[in-house]
């Protein structure tokens, strides 16, 4: 975050970190959030230096709060005045920081010329690509400066820029390279705020756009009964917005712009969700597709215990097959439960499902139900070889169709091109091939398993190379270690088992795949940091099955090469995977029944189709008080990803020859 501050008379060179704190102060004051005034106490937490120096050197700095209680409407008017006089599109919300003698309606131009004002702070809030920035500059100064300096901060940055009578700009050289964002006029702020409060008194219509059978149908029904149709405009503006918003699914780039986090499941602070953020949504809307991860975890455990009970190298453990039966029935019940709930979601909230399908990370989880079914068949208490082949075809058909869709998107290179969406969770779309090949080979099929193995291998190579490259265009790759990385282990371990089954023995090809899996497992295990600082999510269940897969592959390998080491390895890995699953079960139960936040609001489906206008962001902040704090926090966190992104967009991946 780069902040340029020039204060001539005090000759103080403010260091960036405090400038930023100053920015926080002003922003919290002059935007005048309800409920944020109480957060003035946070000022006391500041180190003394940060308070003292500005208040001594900059006259009137600390008394801004008294003068700057300009309501938003006034600000808006001022802004319009300013833009009216200068004819520029920029709206500069200006707060005269001078004593009360300063003219109240200080348009930016006046603020500049008036010698009495030692400095002024004004906020210009454009709709820059990733956020808004606060900057203060005069119209003419902008014109003049634009040739020299781009008065913004990369990405979501504050630019608190204090000017004096004579514009003094000391642009840091790196600012010159950064993008320039132009302000846009703020329209209808007050109207929006007013109307946001107006609540629909008859029925809660805010979730209608996501409903399959929404109010439109009801209106038609009432029309048929002869009741006059209520005008559509009477609906609250939010629902109107969201109706237009949800006509079409957001493009893939919007998902990357609006969401963050390794699973793309947190809304960026500058985004406004389509659905209300402060209250709990209907349960079905909060139920994500990643809940199928639980089925993956439990059903793979069933396979593990079946293997433990039946495989020769672990026969000395005398594991009872009852464990497998119990786990299998639990997995089956869980599968039925989760799929019936998700089916309800498909029926009642199809729009939400559609948005999940276009989510770059969630799309891969649509493979999870089918993979879990394959696991269930693999772990079934009866012998797999006796099953009807139709089961395999029925399960592989949807996987095949999904692959046509997902891999086709990668290849044909739209917005979902692989160099952009590559993410460890893409392994879920690969693993299905190998699991299907394993099951088919166990059933005694020949050609079908080879087909899926071939497809899986080719795309696995592509994905593996792409993920290892960590291309700069890959936005979603988590910077630090995250449980999602365990999916790296899944594909090679299952592939080794599948190849062994296809070929009839655990040959060199199977061993190569197995050792790759083992190496990846080790290289993740030594980096284990107990995954501190990550928010628990249901998707973590999906990340346990690679461990289970690795332990099953180890048992298979130990059946071929039986010695002390392989036996110890297989028991150790099985133990680790079982303990992990048990721990995850405890965590899930804790979240479900104690904290009751197992299914938080699934904001990743509620992003707007277009970048929200600043007026909406502002209205949104007004309506929810906690957001400003989040916003400020999100800025105070070093926004490397944002600035990096902007840098990239500036320098560009494309190098023209």
């Amino acid at each position, binding site marked *: 975050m780069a902040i340029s501050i020039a204060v001539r008379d005090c000759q103080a060179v403010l260091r960036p970190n405090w400038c930023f704190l100053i920015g926080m102060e002003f922003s919290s004051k002059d935007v005048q959030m309800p409920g944020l005034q109480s957060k003035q106490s946070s000022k006391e937490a500041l180190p003394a230096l940060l308070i003292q120096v500005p208040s001594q050197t900059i006259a009137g700095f600390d008394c801004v709060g008294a003068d700057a209680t300009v309501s938003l409407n006034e600000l808006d008017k001022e802004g319009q005045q300013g833009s009216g006089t200068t004819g520029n599109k920029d709206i500069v919300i200006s707060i005269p920081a001078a004593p009360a003698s300063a003219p109240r309606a200080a348009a930016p131009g006046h603020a500049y010329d008036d010698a009495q004002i030692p400095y002024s702070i004004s906020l210009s809030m454009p709709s820059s690509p990733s956020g808004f920035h606060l900057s203060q500059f005069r119209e003419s100064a902008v014109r003049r400066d634009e040739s020299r300096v781009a008065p913004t901060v990369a990405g979501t940055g504050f630019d608190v820029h204090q000017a004096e009578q004579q514009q003094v700009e000391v642009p840091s050289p790196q600012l010159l390279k950064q993008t320039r964002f132009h302000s846009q006029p703020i329209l209808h702020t007050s109207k929006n705020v007013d109307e946001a409060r107006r609540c629909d008194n008859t029925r809660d219509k805010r979730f209608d756009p996501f409903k399959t059978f929404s109010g439109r149908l009801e209106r038609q029904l009432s029309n048929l009964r002869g009741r006059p149709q209520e005008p559509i405009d009477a609906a609250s503006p939010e629902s109107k917005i969201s109706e237009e918003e949800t006509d079409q699914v957001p493009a893939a780039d919007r998902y990357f712009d609006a969401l963050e986090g390794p699973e793309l499941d947190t809304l960026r602070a500058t985004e406004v969700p389509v659905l209300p953020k402060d209250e709990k949504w209907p349960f079905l809307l909060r139920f994500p597709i990643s809940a199928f991860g639980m089925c993956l975890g439990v059903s793979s455990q069933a396979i593990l215990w079946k293997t433990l009970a039946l495989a020769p190298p672990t026969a000395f453990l005398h594991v009872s097959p009852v464990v497998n039966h119990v786990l299998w029935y639990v997995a089956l019940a869980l599968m039925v439960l989760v799929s019936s709930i998700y089916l309800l979601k498909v029926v009642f909230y199809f729009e939400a499902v559609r948005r999940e399908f276009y989510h770059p990370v969630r799309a891969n989880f649509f493979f999870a139900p089918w993979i879990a079914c394959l696991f269930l068949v693999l772990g079934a208490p009866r012998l797999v070889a006796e099953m009807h082949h139709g089961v395999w075809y029925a399960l592989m058909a949807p996987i095949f169709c999904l692959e*046509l869709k997902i891999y086709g998107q*990668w*290849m044909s290179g739209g917005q979902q091109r692989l160099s952009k969406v*590559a993410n460890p969770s893409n392994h879920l779309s690969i693993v299905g091939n190998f699991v299907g090949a394993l099951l088919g080979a166990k059933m005694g099929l020949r*050609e079908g398993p080879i087909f899926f193995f071939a497809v899986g291998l080719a795309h696995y190579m592509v994905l593996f190379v*792409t993920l290892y490259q960590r*291309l700069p265009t890959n936005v979603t790759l988590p910077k630090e270690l995250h449980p999602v990385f365990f999916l790296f282990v899944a594909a090679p371990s299952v592939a080794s088992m599948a190849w062994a089954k296809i070929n009839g023995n655990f040959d060199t090809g199977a061993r190569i795949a197995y050792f790759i899996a083992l190496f990846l497992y080790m290289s993740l295990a030594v980096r284990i940091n107990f995954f501190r600082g990550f928010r628990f999510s249901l998707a973590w269940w999906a990340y346990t099955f690679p461990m289970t897969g690795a332990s099953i592959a180890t048992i298979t390998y130990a059946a071929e090469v039986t010695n002390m080491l392989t036996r110890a390895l297989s028991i150790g890995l099985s133990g680790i995977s079982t303990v992990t699953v048990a721990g995850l079960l405890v965590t899930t139960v804790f979240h479900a029944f104690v904290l009751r936040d197992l299914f938080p609001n699934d904001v990743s489906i509620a992003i707007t189709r277009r970048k929200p206008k600043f007026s909406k962001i502002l209205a949104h902040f007004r309506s929810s008080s906690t957001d400003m704090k989040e916003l400020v926090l999100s800025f105070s966190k070093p926004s490397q990803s944002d600035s990096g992104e902007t840098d990239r967009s500036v320098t560009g*991946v494309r190098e023209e020859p």
Partner: protein
Amino acid sequence: MGLEASSSPSSLKPYAADDTCPMGTGGATKPEARFAILTRFHAGYFRISLALSGQALLWRTLSDSSTDPRPLARSLPSAAFLLLWSLALLALLALCALYAARCLLRFPAVRAEFRHHVAMNYLFAPWISWLLLLQSTPFLRPDAPLYHLLWWAFSLPILVLDVKIYGQWFTRGRKFLSMVANPASHITIIGNLVTARAAAKMGWHEAAVAIFSVGAAHYLVLFVTLYQRFLGSDSLPAMLRPVFFLFFAAPSMASLAWDAISSSFDTGCKMLFFLSLFLFASLVSRPTLFKRAMRRFSVAWWAYSFPLTVLALAAAEYAREVREAAANVLMLALAVLSVAVTLALMVFTALRTGDLLPHDDPFDCPLLAPPLVR
């Protein structure tokens, strides 16, 4: 598709007609008219010869009754195969003559073509066509000395071009793979694989394995690069989207080559063939990709034919190995599809000879398009 204003009446041999048109009228028209044709002609037209040679090989394989005692093989008349083979030979000869004339008279254009990231791949096409014709020839046994001589004659240019282009991929600053990779680059791979297959048919096992391994290694790199779809490499014009079909030609050809090398259609061959089949399904299921290219007939349409033919060839080998009803049906369907596509393309070419040499072929003027290397 409206059939308006077809410049020439339907002729059975559009390529020959295409070829004789400038030659026949050459004496009457002014030299610049003939030169204009030469300027507009480019290596992309070798797609036609590629498609026809592939068809010839497919018919040869299907009618090869010595290893394949099936009713379908018997029912194919050998006269049709001979006709097709000679047609392919004629088209290839005509195109080569035209291109040789272009080399002589328009050398800067040829040089610019050589530097263009799409066009340069088509310099492999004539040699591939010759090799395919050689493999399907009814007159020569693979162990004849003339066959060996011809193999050397046709594969040496491919090897030289390989050294040049693959070297460029990782050494030349502005032509590294992530910038120049496009689906047409598959032709370079296919060149290697066809050479390997011909060598394996001759019994030169070591040479075949060597060339196959070069092709396979570069195919791996190219496949990954193309699948990633860097932003910088999005350099294929929409009119050339049919070239996307080459995506599944390469694994099919690899499966054929490996089949010839290991002399049995083993698991590796099957995997390559299945990959090819999947890619085919994946491309066919997104017709919007090709919508813009289908608006007007152009020579790029010929790119549909050759990959389908190679896929049908691999399916024929697969069906010969597996001997299941489903495999036979698959083979038959793919063969019929490829023959139908080729026939339709021939008809279109005959009806729309005017469109064949357009003035605004996106692929045509590599001099106007900025070459990647200055």
